[in-house]
């Protein structure tokens, strides 16, 4: 039976069919749906972990214990998990372990577009890269087998266009794999110098055997067509090359590390012109050139963003496949952009409105609230990576005395559990005076509403312990911990002023659930036209429900969720709730 599955659904299915017993992940676009789908299989113990390092470490323990394991994360998550990954390579596995790294070329929903293939070479572990959902499913099964045969973790790389594109997949049965017996092996599993030295030798020998595997596996395949043009490619680029150059011969790499040197040499010898088409880094190109084989790649194609069929055709054949419809003449002006915005009723809005008014330096973090940097709120000074807000905030006041007493770090609830807590420890220990706002919207919102350690619910929707952020902060040594409702603008303003003035480490937990979680019918607001002076105070909130045309400001009743924050900024009592009496 064939089923339409996204790459992520197919990876989950592959793990199921491949007999995986345990899976862990931290949500991150474009990887999130892998665990959400794994959670639907009762045979698999799947969990959200507090961060990617934790997810991989639990996975390592589970694999050493004898289970087959899948761990998933977005590309930048691998940075967080890089520490255990590098040494796990030395340890090897017992049950097979596949680590999915989901790249985001083009940065559809990411802060950078690093190329995860570098991690395979860095950690000296094999990496597979599927080109559609069928391969995504099949490659997970093969990766689990290879992991056990070669005693290594296996990386599976996807990109947004693989993870989020759906194509037809032939489903198979689950292969029931018994959990392997656990055997204590101190020399292999305790990474200290005396043990690690021989393990490094074993890793290098393993890589040599994996090179032989890469020469023989059907995952790497030659597709001979016309011999004039030959292209080496993998993953989504394989599809784009097929689209652009249907007559070209192709060496399709399913294993993108280590490379099959002999296969590449044979392919190069069989074509007149050899190209590499790969997004981001010249990962194949540099290794192929190191083999002494002449090949064209980044001389033609960009190091940044995605590579589409038109560009491939243009660079290799000399002209693009399609020409955009000639509409320029009929456009009186460019179409206004529609950037992502904080939703109507978003509890983050009042926070950034207040921070902007108080002219504070805002050290930001990763989540929906990064949109607080966008107009008209524009209340964020920096955003780096998960958890960096609190530690970088401390750095601002350490790095410039003029900034002391003006720094606010802003972090979401899920990000706080991910890697914010260690930053709090540092602020307290090193006598920082920064104020940390924990924007607790009771969910991991940006990635599509995943549970986290603060929500009291597991991945499967089962009740569990809900960790108390205020109690954690007190336990970490913060003396001043307060809570405030995000929709109470006056209280929010006062609490932030007081805590900034306090001159010592402080945490304010700003509470209000994500507006998208509230499914009740809202009591919407409207603007009393006679009272509105068009002063524009409400427009500074940047709420999509507040619309200005010329001087006239109205509330779009279809978008308003009745949060009432705009009422609090109107000095003319011009905003009323439906049903309220005129005064």
């Amino acid at each position, binding site marked *: 039976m064939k089923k*339409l599955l*996204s790459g992520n659904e197919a990876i989950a299915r592959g793990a199921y069919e491949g007999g995986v017993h345990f899976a862990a992940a931290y949500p991150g*676009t*474009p990887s*999130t*749906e892998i665990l959400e789908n794994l959670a639907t299989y009762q045979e698999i113990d799947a969990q959200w972990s507090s961060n990617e390092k934790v997810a991989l470490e639990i996975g390592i323990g589970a694999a050493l214990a004898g289970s087959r394991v899948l761990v998933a994360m977005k590309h930048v998550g691998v940075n967080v998990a890089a520490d255990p990954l590098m040494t796990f390579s030395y340890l090897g596995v017992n049950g097979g372990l596949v680590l999915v790294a989901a790249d985001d070329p083009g940065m*559809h*929903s990411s802060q950078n577009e690093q190329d995860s293939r570098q991690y395979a070479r860095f950690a000296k572990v094999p990496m597979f890269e599927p080109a*559609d959902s069928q391969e995504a499913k099949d490659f997970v099964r093969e990766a689990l087998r290879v992991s056990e045969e070669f005693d290594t973790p296996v990386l599976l790389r996807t990109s*947004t*266009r693989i993870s*989020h*594109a*759906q*194509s*037809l997949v032939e489903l198979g049965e689950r292969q029931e794999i018994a959990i392997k017996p656990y055997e204590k092996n101190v020399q292999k599993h305790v990474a200290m110098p005396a043990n690690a030295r021989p393990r490094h030798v074993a890793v290098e020998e393993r890589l040599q055997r994996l090179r032989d595997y890469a020469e023989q596996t059907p995952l790497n395949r030659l597709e001979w067509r016309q011999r004039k043009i030959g292209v080496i490619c993998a993953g*989504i680029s394989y*599809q*784009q090359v*097929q*689209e652009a150059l*249907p007559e070209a011969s192709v060496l399709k790499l399913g294993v993108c590390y280590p490379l099959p040197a002999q296969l590449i040499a044979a392919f190069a010898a069989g074509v007149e012109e050899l190209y590499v088409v790969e997004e981001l880094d010249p990962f194949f190109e540099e290794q192929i050139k190191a083999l002494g084989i002449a090949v064209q790649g980044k001389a033609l194609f960009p190091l940044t963003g995605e590579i*589409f*069929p*038109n560009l491939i055709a243009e660079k290799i054949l000399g002209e693009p*496949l*399609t*020409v*955009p*419809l*000639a*509409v320029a003449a*009929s*456009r*009186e*002006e460019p*179409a*206004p*952009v*529609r*950037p*992502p*915005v*904080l*939703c109507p009723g978003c509890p983050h809005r009042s926070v950034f409105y207040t921070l902007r008014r108080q002219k504070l330096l805002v050290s930001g973090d990763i989540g*929906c609230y*990064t*949109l607080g940097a*966008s*107009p008209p709120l524009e209340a964020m000074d920096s955003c780096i990576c998960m958890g960096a807000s609190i530690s970088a905030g401390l750095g601002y006041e350490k790095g410039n005395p003029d900034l002391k007493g003006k720094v606010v770090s802003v972090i979401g609830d899920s990000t706080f559990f991910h890697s914010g807590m260690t930053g709090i420890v540092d602020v307290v220990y090193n006598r920082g005076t920064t104020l940390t706002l924990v924007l607790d919207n009771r969910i991991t919102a*940006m*990635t*599509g509403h995943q549970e986290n350690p603060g929500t009291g619910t597991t991945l499967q929707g089962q009740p569990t312990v809900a960790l108390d952020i205020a109690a954690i902060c007190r336990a970490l040594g913060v003396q001043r911990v307060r809570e405030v409702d995000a929709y109470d603008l006056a209280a929010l303003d006062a609490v932030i002023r007081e805590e900034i003035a306090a001159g010592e480490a402080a945490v304010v937990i700003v509470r209000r659930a994500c507006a998208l979680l509230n499914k009740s019918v809202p009591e919407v607001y409207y603007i009393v036209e006679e009272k509105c002076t068009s002063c524009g105070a409400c*427009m500074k909130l*940047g709420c*999509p429900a*507040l*619309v*200005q045309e010329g001087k006239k400001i109205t509330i779009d009743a*279809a978008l308003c969720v009745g949060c009432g924050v705009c009422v609090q900024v109107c000095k003319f009592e011009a905003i009323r709730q439906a049903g309220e009496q005129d005064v």
Partner: protein
Amino acid sequence: MSKTTSLVMGGVGGQGIVLASKILAQVIQDHHYQLKVSEIHGMAQRGGSVLTFVRFGAAVHSPLIELGQADYVFALEKLEAWRLLPYLRTGGTMICSSQEIKPMPVIMGRQQYPAQIIPAMQALAAAGQLGALHTFNALEAACDCGQPKAANVALLGVLARTLEFSLASFLAALAAVVPERFLEANQQAFLVGYQG
């Protein structure tokens, strides 16, 4: 290019582009075509432009559609239709809801919402650049059926009558994809669009 049919489906986050593409994908699948559907998730969904590519035929390679390649653009919002217009090949079909949702630069008064979108597209159709242009107030049609959120399905009705698939196959896909309690309103909205 091959005989692959390419549809670009767009709108604003929250308008239900994903559901509309799911119903269409179900219909295509029932006709045993090869099929690829490509979406973008994450930050883009927060009130931003949302874009889904649907491609089907005997063989489909790229899940993406490039400018000048689409046989159809299906847009749930007028400005998004205007933005997506260059995706159409010459002679392609535009299916556009006349609903307006103002983007933040317009809300803030920094830019104007283009006033002449429909007339400009009509001129393109008259000049033969567009093969067909269908504009339809899908939101109004959906509201008339008592379910404003079914605007996506109402516009899908318009698309359905331009495609090769039968009405029965669309109704079956609706029943398979739309949750039971919303099904009746969605069926009504679909038929309003289908009957024009």
